[in-house]
């Protein structure tokens, strides 16, 4: 994408933002209100953020809404972004997306960590090599069929890499609740995977 940058009254230079610009400069340009930089940020990160957003929502349309809200918030708040090395911009965007997803789920009243009526599954851990062969779409389907709170904790811990302490802070629950919810989510998912593998035999 070639754009012209104003660097004086009547002096403009061409800059290939897509190739040249680093994360820090990109964030700085976005903070200055450069729309081309915003577009570059979108092109770089939207494809990675979109599946993340879909994992926390009911469908892809809601995922797209969440992605838009995330990016709009990021454009507004990017002035406060602290660069901490390569990858920090994506980590920052991911955190915004996760926070917004949690906020949405909370507003909709879908997040419940009640221990009542929780079935305990005694499923065995699936074989690692078998898990590698399961198509990604199938895995995503299984994860999306988990109950909301379990899915949330599983996503945050196993996919996003948050610690139980961070999850407890994000969701406003205790560390113990986070740990037990994750354990239940794992058992439930293991049961689904085993069931799938049985069918495939």
């Amino acid at each position, binding site marked *: 994408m070639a754009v012209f940058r104003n660097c004086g009254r009547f002096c403009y230079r061409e800059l290939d933002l897509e190739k040249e610009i680093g994360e820090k400069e990109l964030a700085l340009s976005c903070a200055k209100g450069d729309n081309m930089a*915003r577009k570059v940020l979108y092109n770089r990160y939207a494809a990675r953020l979109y*599946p993340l957003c879909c994992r926390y929502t009911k469908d892809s349309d809601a995922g797209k809404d969440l992605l838009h809200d995330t990016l709009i918030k990021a454009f507004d708040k990017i002035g406060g972004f602290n660069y901490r090395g390569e990858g920090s911009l994506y980590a920052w965007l991911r955190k915004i997306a996760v926070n917004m997803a949690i906020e949405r789920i909370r507003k909709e009243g879908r997040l419940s960590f009640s221990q009542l009526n929780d079935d305990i599954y005694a499923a065995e851990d699936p074989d690692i090599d078998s898990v590698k062969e399961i198509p990604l779409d199938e895995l995503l389907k299984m994860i999306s069929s988990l109950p909301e709170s379990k899915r949330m904790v599983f996503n945050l811990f196993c996919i996003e890499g948050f610690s139980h302490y961070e999850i407890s802070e994000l969701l406003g629950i205790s560390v113990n609740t986070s740990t037990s919810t994750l354990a239940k989510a794992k058992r439930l998912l293991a049961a689904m995977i085993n069931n799938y593998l049985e069918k495939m035999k």
Partner: protein
Amino acid sequence: MEDWTDIIGKRIKEERKTLPPGDWDNLEREYLARKRSRWIYTSIISLAAAAIAVLAVLLPYQSADINIINDTGIPDTVSELLAQYDSTETIIYPLRKRNFTIADQGTADQVVIAEKPESSTEGSINEEKKDEAQIARPVDNKEHPYYDNSTEEIYTRDRKKIVLSSRLGGLSSRASSGIGGINSSGIGIPYMLGANGGTSIRHSIPITFGLDIGFLIQERFVLTSGIEASVYKSEFSYSGDVGESRGIEQTAWFIGIPLKLEYTVWEADRFSSWIGAGGKADRCIYARLNGMDIHDDTFNWSVLANAGIRYDLFDNIGIFLAPEVSWFFRSENTQLLTYRTENPLMFTVNAGVKFSF
């Protein structure tokens, strides 16, 4: 040791999903719409806050009246006199008389402060001197705006406290010429690719629409603010690779908040005129060049001076004409080339309607 959930986590983390084409355009539109509405909302709140602040300053003046005399038995203010005699028109004050009393001269709407009978004059010489000192005050106050020299009448002027105005303004000068201005050639034109030959810009006359509210903060001084929208149109033409001439159009809308202090210099019958000075902050809310959105978040500042004449059609409604000169401080961060980026000194003629309350 690697867990089976780690495998799932890694696989999912690497997932990429392509968004449908046109998604960026939708996001851009949504973002700009939210930004605009937020900006307008903030402007309205700021304006309301400014109006409240001005009203807070204004309120003490609303109860101010003219002191006539502070002697016992004679009211201190015009409003007290009016309250006693239920008068709304004229108070005649015989300034050259030494001792006064108040009497109704027969007409319900005229209060006359008449001479006291000689026989009723009492007190020592010192008291008489004191009276002289007191009655001399109105004479000394001949420069007071409420004092009419010719008729020796003191009256209340019905000056409105709040003025609302709507206006339309356009430039009346430099519309078709100017070095480096209206028709510029040979300069680098932003956003324009492949302009190998000569280039030129033609700027149309900017048009401004404004809604103002003015508060009388002191006798003859009005503090005015409001909101105004300006549209700047430009035409960029350049020669392409094979020498053919191409032209593209740019339209830019700006929203601004002016703040002016105006002084009424002259009033006669239905006419009044004023001069004023102040500043303005504005920013672009929409700009499009050849179907491409241009975003410019820069705040633009300018100082201005104006003069105007108003003709009152009715008691509360008048029309006005107000030429204005402004100087635009060009920001280096601005992405837009408009009339004023090339002509910092602008001359605008505003015309509109004023409502007074």
